[in-house]
Protein backbone atom coordinates (compact mmCIF):
# COMPACT_ATOMS: atom_id res chain seq x y z
CA UNK A 1 0.00 0.00 0.00
CA UNK A 2 1.38 3.41 -0.99
CA UNK A 3 1.86 5.86 1.88
CA UNK A 4 -0.32 8.98 1.75
CA UNK A 5 2.52 11.02 3.19
CA UNK A 6 5.73 12.46 1.88
CA UNK A 7 8.41 14.32 3.79
CA UNK A 8 10.17 17.64 3.68
CA UNK A 9 13.78 17.64 4.83
CA UNK A 10 15.29 20.68 6.49
CA UNK A 11 18.87 20.62 7.79
CA UNK A 12 18.73 16.84 8.03
CA UNK A 13 15.45 16.83 9.92
CA UNK A 14 12.50 15.15 8.23
CA UNK A 15 8.96 16.56 8.51
CA UNK A 16 6.02 14.53 7.24
CA UNK A 17 3.73 16.32 4.80
CA UNK A 18 0.65 15.54 2.75
CA UNK A 19 0.85 14.51 -0.89
CA UNK A 20 -1.06 15.93 -3.87
CA UNK A 21 -0.70 19.48 -2.59
CA UNK A 22 1.67 22.21 -3.82
CA UNK A 23 4.96 22.53 -1.96
CA UNK A 24 4.15 26.08 -0.84
CA UNK A 25 1.06 24.75 0.91
CA UNK A 26 3.08 22.09 2.70
CA UNK A 27 5.48 24.80 3.84
CA UNK A 28 2.57 26.84 5.14
CA UNK A 29 1.20 23.84 7.03
CA UNK A 30 4.60 23.51 8.71
CA UNK A 31 4.58 27.21 9.60
CA UNK A 32 7.45 27.93 7.23
CA UNK A 33 7.78 30.97 4.97
CA UNK A 34 7.93 30.22 1.23
CA UNK A 35 10.12 33.31 0.83
CA UNK A 36 12.78 31.85 3.09
CA UNK A 37 13.53 28.59 1.28
CA UNK A 38 14.57 27.16 -2.03
CA UNK A 39 13.20 23.75 -2.96
CA UNK A 40 15.28 20.86 -4.22
CA UNK A 41 13.21 17.94 -5.48
CA UNK A 42 15.02 14.81 -6.57
CA UNK A 43 18.29 16.80 -6.77
CA UNK A 44 16.79 19.56 -8.94
CA UNK A 45 15.79 23.12 -8.07
CA UNK A 46 12.03 23.48 -8.56
CA UNK A 47 9.36 26.14 -8.04
CA UNK A 48 7.13 25.82 -4.99
CA UNK A 49 3.92 25.37 -6.99
CA UNK A 50 5.01 21.80 -7.84
CA UNK A 51 2.66 19.11 -6.53
CA UNK A 52 4.11 16.71 -3.96
CA UNK A 53 4.11 13.04 -4.94
CA UNK A 54 4.45 10.10 -2.59
CA UNK A 55 7.87 9.10 -3.90
CA UNK A 56 9.36 12.59 -3.71
CA UNK A 57 12.50 13.54 -1.84
CA UNK A 58 12.07 17.23 -1.09
CA UNK A 59 14.84 19.22 0.54
CA UNK A 60 14.39 22.76 1.84
CA UNK A 61 17.38 25.06 1.50
CA UNK A 62 17.17 27.97 3.98
CA UNK A 63 18.34 31.21 2.40
CA UNK A 64 18.13 33.63 5.32
CA UNK A 65 21.45 34.65 6.79
CA UNK A 66 22.78 37.66 8.53
CA UNK A 67 24.15 39.25 11.59
Amino acid at each position, binding site marked *: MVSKQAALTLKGKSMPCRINIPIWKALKEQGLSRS*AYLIIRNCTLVTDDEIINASDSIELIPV*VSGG
Partner: protein
Amino acid sequence: MRCRKCGEKAVINMRQHRLSLCAEHYLEWIPQQVQRHIEKYEMFSFDDKILVAVSGGKDSLALWNILNGLGYKTEGVYIDLGIDEGIDYSRNSRLTVESFAENNQLPIHLINMQKKHGETIPEINQRTHRGRRNPCSVCGLVKRHVLNQFSLDGSFDVIVTGHNLDDEAAILLANTLDWSLEFLSRGYPVLPAKPGFTRKAKPFCRIYERESAAYTILRKINFINSECPFSIDSKQIYYKEILNQWEDDKPGTKLRFYLHYLKTLDQGAFPRGQENDQELIDQQCPNCGQPTNTGGLCAFCQIFEVK
Protein backbone atom coordinates in the same frame (compact mmCIF):
# COMPACT_ATOMS: atom_id res chain seq x y z
CA MET B 1 5.31 26.59 -13.97
CA ARG B 2 7.09 27.44 -17.22
CA CYS B 3 9.97 29.74 -18.13
CA ARG B 4 8.58 32.96 -19.53
CA LYS B 5 11.35 33.15 -22.13
CA CYS B 6 11.44 29.64 -23.57
CA GLY B 7 8.54 27.67 -22.08
CA GLU B 8 10.82 25.04 -20.50
CA LYS B 9 10.24 23.97 -16.90
CA ALA B 10 11.00 26.87 -14.53
CA VAL B 11 13.41 26.46 -11.60
CA ILE B 12 12.52 29.70 -9.88
CA ASN B 13 9.44 31.84 -9.58
CA MET B 14 10.04 35.46 -8.59
CA ARG B 15 6.58 36.48 -7.51
CA GLN B 16 7.62 40.10 -6.93
CA HIS B 17 8.48 40.37 -10.64
CA ARG B 18 5.76 37.98 -11.81
CA LEU B 19 8.58 36.17 -13.56
CA SER B 20 9.50 32.48 -13.66
CA LEU B 21 12.62 31.28 -15.46
CA CYS B 22 14.42 28.06 -16.37
CA ALA B 23 18.02 27.54 -15.20
CA GLU B 24 19.57 28.74 -18.45
CA HIS B 25 17.60 31.97 -18.62
CA TYR B 26 17.87 32.62 -14.90
CA LEU B 27 21.68 32.46 -15.11
CA GLU B 28 21.50 35.04 -17.92
CA TRP B 29 18.94 37.24 -16.17
CA ILE B 30 20.71 37.77 -12.82
CA PRO B 31 23.95 39.25 -14.26
CA GLN B 32 21.86 41.48 -16.55
CA GLN B 33 19.98 42.79 -13.52
CA VAL B 34 23.20 43.38 -11.58
CA GLN B 35 24.72 45.29 -14.52
CA ARG B 36 21.54 47.36 -14.81
CA HIS B 37 21.72 48.32 -11.14
CA ILE B 38 25.46 49.11 -11.31
CA GLU B 39 24.69 51.56 -14.13
CA LYS B 40 21.50 52.97 -12.60
CA TYR B 41 23.18 53.88 -9.32
CA GLU B 42 26.52 54.77 -10.99
CA MET B 43 28.40 52.37 -8.74
CA PHE B 44 31.61 51.88 -10.74
CA SER B 45 32.98 51.47 -14.24
CA PHE B 46 34.99 48.87 -16.11
CA ASP B 47 38.14 50.99 -15.53
CA ASP B 48 37.81 50.91 -11.75
CA LYS B 49 39.95 48.73 -9.50
CA ILE B 50 37.34 46.86 -7.47
CA LEU B 51 37.82 45.21 -4.08
CA VAL B 52 35.20 42.53 -3.43
CA ALA B 53 34.68 41.75 0.26
CA VAL B 54 34.11 38.01 0.42
CA SER B 55 33.01 35.98 3.42
CA GLY B 56 32.57 32.55 1.86
CA GLY B 57 28.79 32.95 1.94
CA LYS B 58 26.46 32.73 -1.02
CA ASP B 59 26.04 36.44 -1.66
CA SER B 60 29.65 37.56 -1.80
CA LEU B 61 30.77 34.59 -3.89
CA ALA B 62 27.85 34.95 -6.29
CA LEU B 63 28.64 38.65 -6.61
CA TRP B 64 32.33 38.02 -7.30
CA ASN B 65 31.41 35.38 -9.88
CA ILE B 66 29.01 37.76 -11.63
CA LEU B 67 31.32 40.81 -11.61
CA ASN B 68 34.13 38.69 -12.99
CA GLY B 69 31.81 37.30 -15.67
CA LEU B 70 30.71 40.82 -16.61
CA GLY B 71 34.35 41.76 -17.20
CA TYR B 72 35.10 43.97 -14.19
CA LYS B 73 38.62 44.17 -12.71
CA THR B 74 38.18 42.57 -9.31
CA GLU B 75 40.31 41.39 -6.41
CA GLY B 76 38.86 39.65 -3.38
CA VAL B 77 39.58 40.27 0.27
CA TYR B 78 38.74 37.92 3.12
CA ILE B 79 39.01 38.88 6.79
CA ASP B 80 39.77 35.91 9.04
CA LEU B 81 37.83 36.93 12.16
CA GLY B 82 39.05 33.94 14.17
CA ILE B 83 35.57 32.61 14.89
CA ASP B 84 35.71 28.94 15.84
CA GLU B 85 32.95 28.27 18.38
CA GLY B 86 33.32 24.54 17.91
CA ILE B 87 32.51 24.52 14.20
CA ASP B 88 35.72 25.96 12.71
CA TYR B 89 33.59 28.73 11.22
CA SER B 90 36.33 31.11 10.09
CA ARG B 91 38.65 28.33 8.96
CA ASN B 92 35.96 26.73 6.81
CA SER B 93 34.96 30.11 5.40
CA ARG B 94 38.56 30.90 4.49
CA LEU B 95 39.05 27.53 2.81
CA THR B 96 35.85 28.07 0.80
CA VAL B 97 37.00 31.50 -0.36
CA GLU B 98 40.51 30.28 -1.21
CA SER B 99 39.09 27.38 -3.19
CA PHE B 100 36.74 29.69 -5.12
CA ALA B 101 39.57 32.11 -5.94
CA GLU B 102 41.86 29.32 -7.04
CA ASN B 103 39.25 27.61 -9.21
CA ASN B 104 38.41 30.90 -10.92
CA GLN B 105 42.01 32.15 -11.03
CA LEU B 106 41.11 35.33 -9.16
CA PRO B 107 43.41 37.27 -6.79
CA ILE B 108 42.50 37.00 -3.11
CA HIS B 109 43.93 38.91 -0.14
CA LEU B 110 43.71 37.41 3.34
CA ILE B 111 43.68 39.56 6.48
CA ASN B 112 44.04 37.73 9.76
CA MET B 113 42.62 39.66 12.75
CA GLN B 114 44.78 37.79 15.27
CA LYS B 115 47.98 38.49 13.35
CA LYS B 116 47.11 42.03 12.25
CA HIS B 117 45.43 43.38 15.39
CA GLY B 118 46.34 40.83 18.06
CA GLU B 119 42.81 39.69 18.81
CA THR B 120 40.04 37.65 17.27
CA ILE B 121 36.40 38.77 17.19
CA PRO B 122 35.36 36.32 19.97
CA GLU B 123 38.16 37.68 22.16
CA ILE B 124 37.09 41.28 21.54
CA ASN B 125 33.47 40.36 22.18
CA GLN B 126 34.33 38.71 25.46
CA ARG B 127 36.49 41.63 26.60
CA THR B 128 34.27 44.58 25.69
CA HIS B 129 30.85 45.61 26.97
CA ARG B 130 29.72 46.43 23.43
CA GLY B 131 30.84 42.99 22.21
CA ARG B 132 29.03 41.14 24.97
CA ARG B 133 25.87 43.12 24.33
CA ASN B 134 25.89 43.13 20.54
CA PRO B 135 28.63 41.00 18.93
CA CYS B 136 27.41 41.72 15.37
CA SER B 137 27.82 45.44 15.94
CA VAL B 138 31.49 45.03 16.91
CA CYS B 139 32.10 42.65 14.01
CA GLY B 140 30.54 45.11 11.56
CA LEU B 141 32.59 48.00 12.92
CA VAL B 142 35.82 45.99 12.69
CA LYS B 143 35.10 44.80 9.15
CA ARG B 144 34.23 48.31 7.89
CA HIS B 145 37.43 49.74 9.36
CA VAL B 146 39.72 46.95 8.18
CA LEU B 147 38.24 46.92 4.67
CA ASN B 148 38.47 50.68 4.35
CA GLN B 149 42.12 50.69 5.48
CA PHE B 150 43.02 47.85 3.14
CA SER B 151 41.34 49.56 0.18
CA LEU B 152 43.14 52.85 0.91
CA ASP B 153 46.51 51.10 1.22
CA GLY B 154 45.89 49.21 -2.03
CA SER B 155 44.55 52.24 -3.94
CA PHE B 156 41.26 50.54 -4.78
CA ASP B 157 38.58 52.72 -6.37
CA VAL B 158 35.65 50.97 -4.74
CA ILE B 159 34.77 48.35 -2.13
CA VAL B 160 31.82 46.16 -3.08
CA THR B 161 29.89 43.94 -0.70
CA GLY B 162 27.30 41.23 -1.25
CA HIS B 163 24.52 42.94 0.70
CA ASN B 164 21.28 41.84 -0.90
CA LEU B 165 17.78 43.29 -0.88
CA ASP B 166 16.78 41.32 2.21
CA ASP B 167 19.78 42.73 4.08
CA GLU B 168 18.91 46.25 3.03
CA ALA B 169 15.20 45.88 3.82
CA ALA B 170 15.96 44.40 7.27
CA ILE B 171 18.40 47.20 8.12
CA LEU B 172 15.87 49.73 6.85
CA LEU B 173 13.13 48.23 9.00
CA ALA B 174 15.37 48.30 12.09
CA ASN B 175 16.46 51.89 11.44
CA THR B 176 12.89 52.99 10.78
CA LEU B 177 11.62 51.42 14.00
CA ASP B 178 14.39 53.26 15.86
CA TRP B 179 14.00 56.44 13.77
CA SER B 180 17.77 56.43 13.35
CA LEU B 181 17.94 59.44 11.04
CA GLU B 182 21.71 59.30 10.78
CA PHE B 183 21.64 55.71 9.52
CA LEU B 184 18.57 56.33 7.38
CA SER B 185 20.50 59.04 5.57
CA ARG B 186 23.24 56.57 4.61
CA GLY B 187 21.23 53.76 3.05
CA TYR B 188 21.94 54.56 -0.57
CA PRO B 189 23.42 51.60 -2.52
CA VAL B 190 26.56 53.58 -3.28
CA LEU B 191 28.43 55.84 -0.87
CA PRO B 192 30.83 58.19 -2.65
CA ALA B 193 34.56 58.37 -1.89
CA LYS B 194 35.54 61.08 0.58
CA PRO B 195 38.87 61.97 2.15
CA GLY B 196 39.87 58.87 4.11
CA PHE B 197 36.96 56.81 2.79
CA THR B 198 36.90 54.57 -0.28
CA ARG B 199 33.68 54.50 -2.32
CA LYS B 200 31.35 51.66 -1.28
CA ALA B 201 28.77 49.93 -3.44
CA LYS B 202 26.19 47.17 -3.10
CA PRO B 203 25.49 45.72 -6.57
CA PHE B 204 23.05 43.13 -5.11
CA CYS B 205 20.90 45.82 -3.46
CA ARG B 206 17.86 44.79 -5.52
CA ILE B 207 18.57 41.05 -5.65
CA TYR B 208 16.52 38.97 -3.22
CA GLU B 209 18.47 36.69 -0.89
CA ARG B 210 16.55 33.77 -2.38
CA GLU B 211 17.67 34.75 -5.88
CA SER B 212 21.29 34.98 -4.84
CA ALA B 213 21.09 31.53 -3.24
CA ALA B 214 19.48 30.09 -6.38
CA TYR B 215 22.29 31.54 -8.49
CA THR B 216 25.02 29.88 -6.38
CA ILE B 217 23.20 26.54 -6.47
CA LEU B 218 22.64 26.63 -10.24
CA ARG B 219 26.23 27.80 -10.86
CA LYS B 220 27.41 25.02 -8.52
CA ILE B 221 29.39 27.51 -6.44
CA ASN B 222 30.47 25.94 -3.18
CA PHE B 223 29.62 28.29 -0.30
CA ILE B 224 29.62 28.16 3.47
CA ASN B 225 26.08 27.33 4.49
CA SER B 226 26.44 27.39 8.25
CA GLU B 227 25.39 30.55 10.05
CA CYS B 228 27.90 32.59 12.00
CA PRO B 229 27.48 31.30 15.60
CA PHE B 230 27.25 34.88 16.88
CA SER B 231 24.37 35.83 14.59
CA ILE B 232 21.93 33.05 15.53
CA ASP B 233 19.69 35.36 17.58
CA SER B 234 20.57 38.52 15.71
CA LYS B 235 18.00 41.26 15.24
CA GLN B 236 18.67 41.27 11.50
CA ILE B 237 17.49 37.67 11.12
CA TYR B 238 14.43 38.46 13.24
CA TYR B 239 13.50 41.37 10.96
CA LYS B 240 14.13 39.27 7.86
CA GLU B 241 11.71 36.64 9.13
CA ILE B 242 9.04 39.26 9.69
CA LEU B 243 9.61 40.75 6.23
CA ASN B 244 9.36 37.28 4.68
CA GLN B 245 5.98 36.73 6.35
CA TRP B 246 4.75 39.94 4.72
CA GLU B 247 6.36 38.92 1.44
CA ASP B 248 4.47 35.59 1.51
CA ASP B 249 1.15 37.43 1.72
CA LYS B 250 2.05 40.41 -0.47
CA PRO B 251 4.81 39.56 -2.97
CA GLY B 252 7.07 42.53 -3.62
CA THR B 253 6.71 44.03 -0.14
CA LYS B 254 10.46 44.02 0.52
CA LEU B 255 11.28 45.49 -2.89
CA ARG B 256 8.65 48.22 -2.59
CA PHE B 257 9.79 49.08 0.94
CA TYR B 258 13.37 49.54 -0.25
CA LEU B 259 12.63 51.30 -3.55
CA HIS B 260 10.23 53.77 -1.96
CA TYR B 261 12.86 54.48 0.68
CA LEU B 262 15.42 55.26 -2.04
CA LYS B 263 12.87 57.56 -3.63
CA THR B 264 12.27 59.44 -0.39
CA LEU B 265 16.06 59.62 0.12
CA ASP B 266 16.39 61.24 -3.33
CA GLN B 267 13.64 63.67 -2.37
CA GLY B 268 15.68 64.76 0.65
CA ALA B 269 13.53 63.15 3.32
CA PHE B 270 16.58 62.35 5.44
CA PRO B 271 19.52 64.70 5.88
CA ARG B 272 22.60 63.32 4.12
CA GLY B 273 25.99 63.21 5.91
CA GLN B 274 26.89 66.80 6.58
CA GLU B 275 30.70 66.65 6.90
CA ASN B 276 32.51 68.38 4.08
CA ASP B 277 35.88 67.22 2.80
CA GLN B 278 37.87 69.62 4.95
CA GLU B 279 36.06 68.53 8.10
CA LEU B 280 36.88 64.91 7.33
CA ILE B 281 40.55 65.80 6.82
CA ASP B 282 40.55 67.72 10.12
CA GLN B 283 38.79 64.95 12.03
CA GLN B 284 41.39 62.23 11.70
CA CYS B 285 41.88 59.57 14.34
CA PRO B 286 45.26 60.34 15.98
CA ASN B 287 46.08 56.62 16.00
CA CYS B 288 45.07 55.23 12.58
CA GLY B 289 44.39 58.39 10.55
CA GLN B 290 40.91 57.34 9.41
CA PRO B 291 38.18 60.03 9.64
CA THR B 292 36.10 60.07 12.81
CA ASN B 293 33.61 62.39 14.44
CA THR B 294 34.36 61.29 18.00
CA GLY B 295 36.82 64.11 18.62
CA GLY B 296 39.50 61.61 19.58
CA LEU B 297 40.24 58.01 18.77
CA CYS B 298 37.91 56.44 16.19
CA ALA B 299 35.49 53.74 17.36
CA PHE B 300 37.79 51.00 16.05
CA CYS B 301 40.86 52.26 17.91
CA GLN B 302 38.78 52.79 21.06
CA ILE B 303 38.04 49.06 21.10
CA PHE B 304 41.73 48.28 21.32
CA GLU B 305 42.57 51.14 23.67
CA VAL B 306 40.38 49.82 26.51
CA LYS B 307 42.39 46.59 26.63
